[in-house]
């Protein structure tokens, strides 16, 4: 697959929670593939996909690891779908300090789904490969490449601009000069 200029391939795992049986074969295969040597050890706690499940509430939601965040959240939002309630965490892909999901149990480092990146590339990620019910489906699509975003302004720049907005540019410069002399 060779995207044209200005195009890129987006890899996605589409999740159908209605089809999930909760078997967690996806977790098994993910942890096996990412072990070293490959397939040598199985540990679902190291998987980059987790099935959030609760047999009492009929909740079966596979989530695969997204970005790491250093701050947790209260996770208090409750979603009601088809009469069944789900917590905010059920759908959240972040590895965060609030919960154990997607934190490597030995090192404490964050885990992130890499779509089973491999050379040569796999046909599809292992979690999708072992999902007998096709609750997980792999998809690739071409999208236009976005313009690279301008570098975000640094903290100092943000602070100075706020001061200038409040006090005027000249007052800020004058005060900075004074401070320089005092030092």
């Amino acid at each position, binding site marked *: 697959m060779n995207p044209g200029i200005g195009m890129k391939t987006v890899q996605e795992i589409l999740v159908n929670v209605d089809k999930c049986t909760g078997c967690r074969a996806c977790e098994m295969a993910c942890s096996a593939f990412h072990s070293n040597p490959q397939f040598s050890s199985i540990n679902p706690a190291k998987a980059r996909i987790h099935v959030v499940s609760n047999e009492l*509430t009929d909740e079966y939601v596979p989530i695969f690891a997204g970005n790491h965040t250093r701050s947790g959240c209260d996770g208090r939002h409750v979603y009601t779908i088809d009469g069944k309630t789900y917590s905010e965490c059920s759908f959240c892909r972040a590895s965060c300090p609030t919960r154990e999901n997607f934190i490597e149990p030995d090192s404490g480092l964050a885990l992130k789904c890499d779509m089973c990146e491999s050379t040569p590339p796999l046909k599809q990620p292992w979690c999708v490969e072992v999902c007998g019910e096709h609750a997980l489906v792999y998809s690739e699509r071409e999208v236009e490449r976005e313009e690279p975003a301008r570098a975000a302004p640094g903290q100092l720049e943000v602070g100075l601009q706020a001061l200038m907005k409040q006090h005027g540019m000249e007052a800020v410069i004058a005060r900075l000069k004074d401070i320089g002399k005092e030092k």
Partner: protein
Amino acid sequence: MRYAETGFNLEIDLTLGTVERVETELDLAGSYLGGQGSAAKLLWERVPPETDPFSPDNLLIFSTGLLHGTPLPACNRTVVNTFSPQTNLMSHSLFGGFFGPELKYAGYDKIVIRGKATDLVYLYINNDKVEIRDATHLRGKGCTETGDLLKKELKDQRIQVAAIGLAGENRVYMASIDHNHASAARGVGVIMGDKRLKAIAVRGTKAVNVARPAELFEMSQRIHQKMAGSSGCGDWMAVDEDDSFHHNHFAWGNARTRRPGYWNKELQDRWTNLKYDNMDRQTGCYNCPKKCRNVIKMPGQQRFGYKCFGKDTYHMAAFLELDFSYEILGIAQEYGVDSYSTPQVMAFALELLDAGILQDKDFPEMPEDVRGRFFYLLEKIVRREGIGDILADSVSQAARRIGNGAEAYDHNTTKKFEQLPIKLGKLNPAYFLMIATGEKMSITQIEGSFPQDPLPTEEQRQEFVNKWEAVPDEKFKDYFLNWKKRSDISDEATCDIVDWNEAMHYIDDSLGFCGFVSSFRGQFGGDVPYHMNNIPEAIALATGVAMDKPKLWKNFQRIRTLIRAVNVRRGLRRKDERPPEDHWAVRDEQYEQELLSKYYAFKGWNSEGIPTRQTLESLDLAYVADDLEQRGILDPADGGPR
């Protein structure tokens, strides 16, 4: 490094409140495998035969299978063993789900529990942290409710919990241990309750290592794919809405009344609608592509899951319809009672009332309608209130406590255990041997590899054997090709068939495989993903221990013979090995006893069903022979050379 197994057991003493992590001997992997095999060894070594099941010295053992936690699919059934107060023999039970693999990921092959706590406790296992915690706040809570409460209390949704309900707390003999809509029955819940252990909560984040990773993963994926697309494994009853087989052929009530022609299209349509109108989904166990469990949510009631014949037992015992089973199952499962034996106990009680052996005064304030009566009896049994205290001891023991002719109504037990309610015409030799000599107590845990019935034409039989990969020996193909009438088969073939059927269960229950992909399922179509011709390779790749078919077969024989010895030492003898007298209408006592003698000889057991010294020594069980001789159970003169 140990492969496939962790090499450690947890030893819990509930009397002393101690927890030990004990390294196990490496050669266990080769000799007794894991699961039930190595558990039987512990029971032999550590529970003297005179130990009362209610003694603190009785052990309750939760075992992972040797191959739990490896990539091999459908390897997840946790084995529970102890001694049962119902039979006074070794209890063998299993439950599916996620518990066993999680225990391995926590770093343990087994939990061995001895002693008794003074009040309800639960065991919390989080990798190396193992605590015995107060569980008095969980008293009276349902099985899945307990799991839910513990997940909240421990703030971890990924914990796996096995718990007893009110029935186990009250030492009901039919009590089960439940986990994730799966349950272990046949005498284990009562001992968990007696030890005052309400639940075990496990969380594991360690790795299970395998010896030959790439090859094992490739094999696992090949089997996974075969399973996913195959109708030759899994529980077809989860989706086949034609359940005429059970309803037309099994006996209703107290295993009493057959209703041929009961099933009809109108009924099937109505029941199918009831199911799909109230079914959330079908779920599977750990790392298995099948989805054998139907999860039902009736309006205003708690969710429950069932598989197989479990959906029929209550309404067939009560002469009602599926809606009644749906109504009572959710409640009964939360109380934690076995759905196979409990309905028979209730139907037995109502028969005694009809017969005048029990009186109205024994059932104060019992409703008139049968639906209300079953709910009434369930409440009495799980609380051991009034007549429920007697019924909670199971049919056979309750009959003896009630007396006054009640014993005659105990007509469907073997070794004091409730059998499936099957009443047939002419004796089936293989089934006679399986029910008589089986020590897993239920025929579903004994039958399963060789088809139940012959195929009508030679072409069909030829076609069947042509693709029959599972046979451990070509002779089974000959047996099947030449088999035309169910009862018309040689005694030699019968012994071989029973032995093979048994073998696969003993192997599955030591490795952790589910019977629906192996031991139970081959009889229906022959196309099971796990069998004697590929399991040795799976063991070798996972454990690194050399394994081949003869060695695995010998492992089966060793484990099976050891379990026989465990039970013989507790008193099991030939006289106990009788299927229910009315299991078949036409019986031939002389032939049955001849067949039993031939089977004992085939197994290397003496005329009382006791393994001979020669047999024991050939299976590296000389220490068992020594013990049986010292106890005067084996006669040195009879058991071959010392």
